[in-house]
């Protein structure tokens, strides 16, 4: 122990040196045919030189990446207005644009910036949105995502999720010397930071409902254990290190409990509930088959999980009132696993075996009907965007692990690939509180 303490600080310093994360680049594979034509006009800048951040370009990229919008290229714009009353709707109508976003960025005396933006509907000339917000220099990207959120919601009627984040596991190095990193990035893949690194496997990151902590499985002690890490301080706490498997953590909607999979001494993998404050453990399933991958319904009254009690993995629901028995949900196909519940509780994203390939499907939580959404051969680890519009998952591209996003209706698809190494196990954050 003394020896451990002696060399620990040196090693921590060596590994804590900030390293350049591999860039995540977005490739849109398919957008919607009926995507909304919109123009995001470059913002006016009320000072000499260039603006510190091209906020309009961030909004343009967000809307385009969503697949629901078709932003007009800047080179096609006939004029560059910076306020709603300067928008000549006849010109924009000629360009077949339905909406125009205009605005202005101004430096404030205290070093911050004022961002003003307006959304104009071309057909009516009506101003649909108009807002002004003070922004720190370091938050200009985030401010762009907030503008995108507001535009998305005003036009589509669904809250935008551009200002949310994703957690994922990045893996690099040869098979004999792998490096695993738990990474958090903005939803557009930018602004990455490593929250935990280990030469041993890391998997199953799960966000706390307040977005302030991640629970995950790490093998860094040599055996699997579940850790909770506060993101602000980096403080990591081991919450489950029972004999055997400690896996698949999932936060209850109120954040007080983790559902998880344990095998304990007898090797029988079952679902348990761990109360975080007291470390009290309650066994929920007791079946000789595999029960794993629990996921909470948003009302906190039931859990979905994977079980092979019928001979092959299928999804079951267990009501948490005492005396309830698990009820099978999926019947289509020979393999349905890793359920994740949509924010409205109506659908489950699962991994399904589809003609020999493993794909992401959406399952109706009541009727069990299944729609295959993805088209890869080794798709896994689905996670819903907090607005329920999209599902992020892990797939392969040219033999390499990449992340992909598919819209809940299957019509929009995009890939997020790292410039080096593999990325996997994505988990989409909740909305910021």
């Amino acid at each position: 122990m003394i020896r451990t303490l002696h060399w620990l600080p040196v090693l921590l310093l060596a590994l804590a040196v900030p390293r350049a994360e591999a860039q995540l680049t977005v490739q849109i594979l398919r957008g919607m045919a009926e995507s909304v034509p919109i123009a995001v006009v470059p913002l006016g800048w009320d000072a000499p030189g260039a603006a510190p951040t091209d906020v309009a370009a961030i909004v343009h990229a967000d809307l385009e990446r969503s697949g629901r919008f078709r932003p007009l290229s800047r080179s096609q714009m006939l004029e560059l207005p910076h306020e709603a009353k300067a928008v000549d709707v006849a010109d924009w109508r000629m360009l077949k644009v339905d909406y125009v976003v205009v605005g202005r960025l101004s430096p404030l005396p205290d070093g911050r910036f004022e961002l003003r933006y307006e959304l104009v509907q071309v057909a009516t000339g009506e101003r649909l949105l108009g807002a002004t917000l003070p922004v720190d220099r370091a938050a200009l990207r985030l401010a762009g995502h907030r503008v995108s959120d507001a535009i998305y919601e005003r036009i589509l009627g669904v809250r935008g999720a551009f200002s949310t984040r994703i957690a994922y596991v990045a893996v690099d190095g040869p098979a004999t010397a792998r490096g695993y990193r738990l990474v958090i990035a903005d939803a557009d893949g930018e602004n990455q930071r490593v929250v935990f690194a280990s030469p041993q496997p890391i998997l199953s990151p799960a966000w706390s409902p307040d977005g302030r902590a991640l629970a995950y499985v790490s093998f860094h002690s040599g055996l699997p254990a579940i850790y909770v890490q506060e993101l602000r301080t980096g403080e990591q706490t081991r919450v489950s290190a029972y004999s055997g498997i400690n896996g698949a953590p999932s936060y209850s909607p109120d954040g007080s409990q983790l559902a998880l999979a344990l095998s304990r001494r007898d090797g029988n993998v079952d679902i348990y509930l761990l109360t975080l404050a007291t470390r009290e453990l309650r066994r929920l399933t007791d079946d000789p088959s595999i029960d794993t991958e629990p996921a909470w319904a948003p009302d906190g009254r039931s859990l979905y999980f994977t079980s092979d009690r019928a001979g092959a993995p299928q999804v079951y629901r267990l009501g948490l009132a005492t005396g309830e028995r698990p009820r099978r949900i999926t019947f289509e196909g020979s393999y349905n696993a890793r359920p994740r519940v949509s924010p409205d509780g109506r659908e489950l994203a699962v991994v399904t075996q589809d003609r020999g390939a493993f794909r992401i499907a959406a399952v109706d939580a009541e009727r069990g009907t299944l729609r295959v959404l993805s088209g890869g051969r080794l798709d896994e680890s689905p996670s819903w965007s907090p607005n329920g519009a999209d599902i992020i998952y892990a797939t392969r591209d040219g033999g390499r692990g990449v992340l992909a996003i598919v819209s809940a209706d299957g019509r929009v698809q995009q890939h997020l690939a790292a410039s080096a190494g593999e990325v996997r196990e994505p988990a989409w954050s909740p909305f910021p509180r």
Partner: protein
Amino acid sequence: MRLLPAMLILAVAAGLAGCPKKPTTVPDAGAGTQTAPQDGATTGAGEGQVGQARDLPSEGAAIGAAPAGVATVIYFDFDRSDIRPEFTSLVNAHARHLAGAAGTRVRLEGHTDERGSREYNIALGERRAQAVRRALMLQGAGDNQLTTVSYGEERPAAEGSDEAAYERNRRVEIVYGR
């Protein structure tokens, strides 16, 4: 003679496993400021003690070594954990060896191929390791000689996404001296 290098590798691997490279946690840097991890940043992560020193075996059939000439990997069918008939004699040979060497311990490491979901594969790897554990115990190995761990699909023996690689990855490795 052929055993010696293998035993050396085992012994070195066992030594290395006792002092893994330290993992690190890094606080969420927010607006670009990096904070060095504090003492509390590795709460629960202090498992990396240096392992117990073990003498290298001096000669012949050392305690803690695998039986000579017996393979140490058992392969499985997709999504199955029952031991195929062709591996019965292999399992029995290890069981007899363990029954005759009460001080010998093995770790049963369960693995799967990369298909399907990762946590289900962790569970499947554990079930494979448990199947081998039960078979060894039925043939005379002691419960206290056996531990299991599952890596699921995280540590493939063969890279690649074809059936040839998958066959080699659906396995339990019997690791002596752990």
